[in-house]
């Protein structure tokens, strides 16, 4: 491109250098990124077709790892848990985030204080959130025993120790962490809506509810989409929260695909199956991201 640029025909060295310098400077980091992101993705895909056990090996075994993966019961558990976790986490975070944003948008006093309070959980890592919630939800030291000491003798909340309910406690912690962030995205969207339209609607006698339903929410579509994409990839890669809160337990009831991948690859000497699960996770994320990117790019054109 640069060499054929008519502006540079016959230009002196200095100008040519100025044109090339950004590319020269960026080339190493571009190469590193290609190697460490796409190179390792390719390596993982390759590993998923090998008989790797404790350390990587290079003997191809075909689809065997995928066949085994879908027969391992923990993978079923992990997939079902991901469905429950991702579904609830995305929906609840979005609803709470939206309600908080609408509430903060009512020109109330103290918005400056409330906004960072709602947003701050996002500043904590999931491992901190998880450890804190583990203690809060532990029946022997947390909420349950405190409520009982306050005189509510029959108060019971031992979900985290119950293999049927433990996955929902992870939803609680994750929602607590992310709702404020979703709120910030919606708030930005709400502030971007043209006031003139709202005034016009008001003059036409639209109620508050109608204004939100017919004008404001439809205009928040990009914010909804961003929230969905960010939350869904957070859900799929979710690992640290589970490790901190339950370590996959009780039993194996709170396993998520990311935990499965780590366990099989690094502690169980079944690197092939672990790599296969990583590829499935990558494909799941791609299935969400590709249509999104496609829609975004088409809109710009």
């Amino acid at each position, binding site marked *: 491109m640069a060499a054929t640029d008519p502006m540079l025909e016959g230009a002196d060295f200095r100008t040519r250098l100025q044109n090339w310098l950004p590319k020269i400077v960026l080339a190493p980091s571009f190469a590193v990124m290609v190697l460490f992101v796409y190179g390792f993705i390719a390596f993982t895909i390759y590993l998923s077709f090998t008989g790797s056990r*404790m350390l990587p090996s290079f003997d191809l075994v075909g689809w065997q790892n995928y066949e*085994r993966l879908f027969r391992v019961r923990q993978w079923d558990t992990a997939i079902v848990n991901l469905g429950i976790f991702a579904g609830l986490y995305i929906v609840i975070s979005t609803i709470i985030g939206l309600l908080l944003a609408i509430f903060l948008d009512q020109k109330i006093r103290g918005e400056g204080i409330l906004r960072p309070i709602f947003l701050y959980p996002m500043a904590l890592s999931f491992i901190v959130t998880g450890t804190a919630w583990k203690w809060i939800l532990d029946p*022997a030291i947390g909420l349950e025993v405190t409520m009982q000491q306050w005189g509510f003798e029959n108060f019971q909340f031992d979900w985290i*120790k119950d293999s049927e309910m433990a996955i929902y406690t992870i939803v609680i912690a994750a929602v607590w962490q992310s709702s404020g962030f979703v709120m910030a995205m919606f708030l930005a969207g709400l502030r971007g809506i043209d006031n003139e339209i709202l005034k016009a609607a008001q003059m036409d006698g639209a109620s508050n509810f109608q204004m939100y339903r017919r004008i404001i929410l439809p205009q928040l579509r990009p914010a909804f989409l961003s929230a969905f994409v960010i939350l869904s990839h957070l859900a799929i890669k979710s690992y640290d929260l589970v490790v901190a809160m339950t*370590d996959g*337990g009780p*039993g*194996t009831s709170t396993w998520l695909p990311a935990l499965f991948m780590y366990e099989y690859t690094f*502690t169980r*000497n079944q690197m092939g199956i672990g790599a296969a699960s990583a590829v499935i996770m990558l494909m799941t994320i791609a299935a969400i991201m590709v249509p999104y990117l496609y829609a975004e790019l088409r809109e710009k054109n």
Partner: protein
Amino acid sequence: MTLMKKFYTGAAVVALSTSAVVAQEVEVLHWWTSGGEAAALNVLREDLAGGGIGWTDMPVAGGGGSDAMTVLRARVTAGDPPTAVQMLGFSIQDWAAEGALANLNDLAAEQNWDEVVPEALQAFSTYEGDWVAAPVNVHSTNWVWANTALMEELGIEQPETWEDFVAAMQTAQDAGYTALAHGGQAWQDATIFDSMVMGVGGPEFYQASMVDLDPEALGGEQMVEAFERMATLRGFVDDNFSGRDWNLASAMVINGEALFQIMGDWAKGEFVNAGLTAGEEFQCFRVPGTEGTVTFNSDQFAMFGVDEDDAESQLAMASAVMSPEFQIAFNVVKGSAPARTDIDPSSFDACGQAAMADLAEAGSNGGLFGSMAHGHANPPSIQNAMYDVITAHFNGEFDAETAAEEMVTAVELAQ
């Protein structure tokens, strides 16, 4: 000029002395981080310090050592293995198969290890006839630890049969105590499962299911029975057991909150550390139904291939580990039996002497078996597959029949 010269000479001296220090040092990766364990390891550290060998400690917390193995994998992949790594059973074989371990044959021949180490242990410390690890101890895992005061208060005698054992726990539960102190981690569930398998079907069944992985034994009636006994035990565990560490469960027995704990003899270190005396304030007996047999695991120091500078201190460490003095001093503190058979039992407490006697008996009549829960019956991939089923059943995800079926599938997939 002279100043520069001085500087260079000084730098050279510093460089020389640094390399000398490095040569006289061992880096040891282990997971002995609880009170009793750390004290036991100190014996070795001081022993080596006496010989002028430094000690770089690399502790990675977590019972069973799975976290430590993850750290190790990273170190070896990076080409920088520690000198010695605490390791269990098949992991040693796996690492030896990768060619990562050093050869200790000369030292072993010189000190006659072949004669003094029981054959069941040698199966793990040697790979294709070469010594690659120094065994530290033999832990047996089918022990019950009991609070004597609580037994007397409740009028409980030492149970002889499984039925007596259940009856004793029922008495404790009815009196408002936790009958069985237990931590809900997969390896702890598997530890009690070992004893249930041995108790239900004896040595032949244990060999067929846990070692030979015979699908008929894994999915058979005896396996269902073993899982049913697990469910019975689950009924005697308190509600808040999930995720509890084993030493906290031991503390429940020590404090008199709980009657029994089924755990390997490393638990004894916790009792002794709390100032209790074996045979008096606390009791140890084999899990009812498993008398005469011992399921063991053996902590070993796997010696990694290091460069020549470090090899000398590595051999010194291996030699120190195998010396009778260290074996006594360490195992008295740690609660286990020595890895050598020629040790005088007189300095051990009641439980330690019982362990050494049981070990000798089991070794002579074919009742000595590697513990599945501790990676001494089958390789890690199968061990973990079994863990999954056992822990899922213990937490109520399966009934006994489903669990036995799942055992067959899980083992098949991990092979």
